[in-house]
């Protein structure tokens, strides 16, 4: 038997499993005793099976020991450790409490507050002033919203407009003026509650074409926002 033939036949495995006929077995043994590679392979397999039998002959203690070690190894909790009941149930209970409080207390309170009439701090901003004005600063409480009465571009050449308010830190708030509102001379824009900084705020506007493209219409205005405690 040639070496390649032995490999293709998986003769070594078949030999170990007693699957070779007597003739083929004899041929393989003749090759085995003369081939260093196959002899090493066979010796390796023999050692593996010998040690494997000894290892497998040990009762399931080894496997149990592995499981115990894994249980004690809390430094590697595993990806789904949080799903275990001991952790998941208290976490879900806490979550339900939070949801309940928000639905029963927080949201109704906020909804009620929104429904009440409010007087908002307001100022008028003329987009044709191209810069600062001498108007007094707009004074708001921390987190309070305000109203800007924006005097619209006079020609109304675009079906819609976009208005951007840039704060001193560079944060931008944008609002789209719809087609119906854009024909008005003044746009009353409510800027909602937010933690804003005091300082100079700049308002710019761009036209929005029917195709949805933004077009700079020039102009702009600024005002001073003052935060009062």
């Amino acid at each position, binding site marked *: 038997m040639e070496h390649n033939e032995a490999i293709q036949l998986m003769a070594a495995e078949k030999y170990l499993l*007693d699957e070779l006929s007597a003739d083929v077995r004899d041929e393989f043994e003749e090759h085995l005793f003369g*081939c260093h590679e196959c002899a090493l392979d*066979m*010796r*390796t397999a023999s*050692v*593996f099976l010998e040690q494997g039998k000894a290892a497998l*002959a040990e009762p399931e203690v080894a496997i149990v020991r592995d499981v115990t070690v894994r249980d004690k190894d809390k430094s590697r909790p595993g990806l789904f450790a949080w799903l275990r009941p001991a952790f998941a149930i208290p976490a879900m209970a806490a979550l339900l409490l939070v949801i309940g409080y928000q639905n029963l207390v927080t949201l109704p309170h906020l909804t009620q507050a929104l429904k009440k009439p409010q007087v908002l701090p307001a100022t008028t901003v003329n987009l044709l002033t191209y810069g600062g004005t001498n108007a007094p600063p707009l004074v708001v409480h921390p987190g309070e919203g305000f109203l800007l009465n924006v005097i619209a571009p006079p020609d109304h050449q675009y079906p819609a407009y976009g208005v951007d308010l840039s704060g001193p830190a560079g944060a931008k708030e944008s609002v789209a003026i719809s087609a119906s509102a854009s024909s008005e001379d003044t746009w009353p824009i409510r800027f909602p509650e937010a933690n804003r900084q005091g300082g100079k705020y700049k308002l710019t506007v761009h036209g929005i074409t029917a195709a949805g493209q933004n077009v700079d219409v020039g102009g702009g205005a600024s005002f001073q926002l003052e935060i009062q405690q």
Partner: protein
Amino acid sequence: MQFHAFDSLYLEQLRAGDFRTQEHFVSYFSELIRLKLGKRLHSRPEIEDARQETFTRVLSALHRDDGVRQPERLGAFVNSVCNNVLLEHYRSASQEAPSAEEEAAINIPDPALSAIDIIANREMQRKVRHILDELPEKDRRLIKEIFLDERDKDEVCRDLGVDREYLRVLLHRAKKSFKSLYLKKMRERALQE
């Protein structure tokens, strides 16, 4: 077990009784002879007797002028001597015992386990254990029931829903996984010696 070329020098050293060469020779062929005999004889004492007899005859032949003529065919010679030992066993014919002088001259090193061997064995067992633990449960059961429990292979395959080809491939892969670890260990031991 490092690879040694079976050449004239090797035979000379073997004839001269060089301990390391003899040790290598016995280590190299012991397992192969045991495997061969294990497929034909059924009791450990019979296998061990036949193994000893094979080595005795080979080493006796080495000392004869017409003994091993082609060093590179030493392996084939050992195999044929083992075949003869088996034939004689089957015929239950009395063997010509080696002479007292020959017996005194031949000293087949017993591959006894040294402390290093015991430690190496334990380490080897750990590595094998690791390989086995990495196997799916079904594969581990296959190996256990066939090689440890010595159950009928067809029955085991049927119970576990696999065929003989699956079993062969499993054995091939397990052997391959172990081989690199085993060779590394052998190299380390050779360096230590």
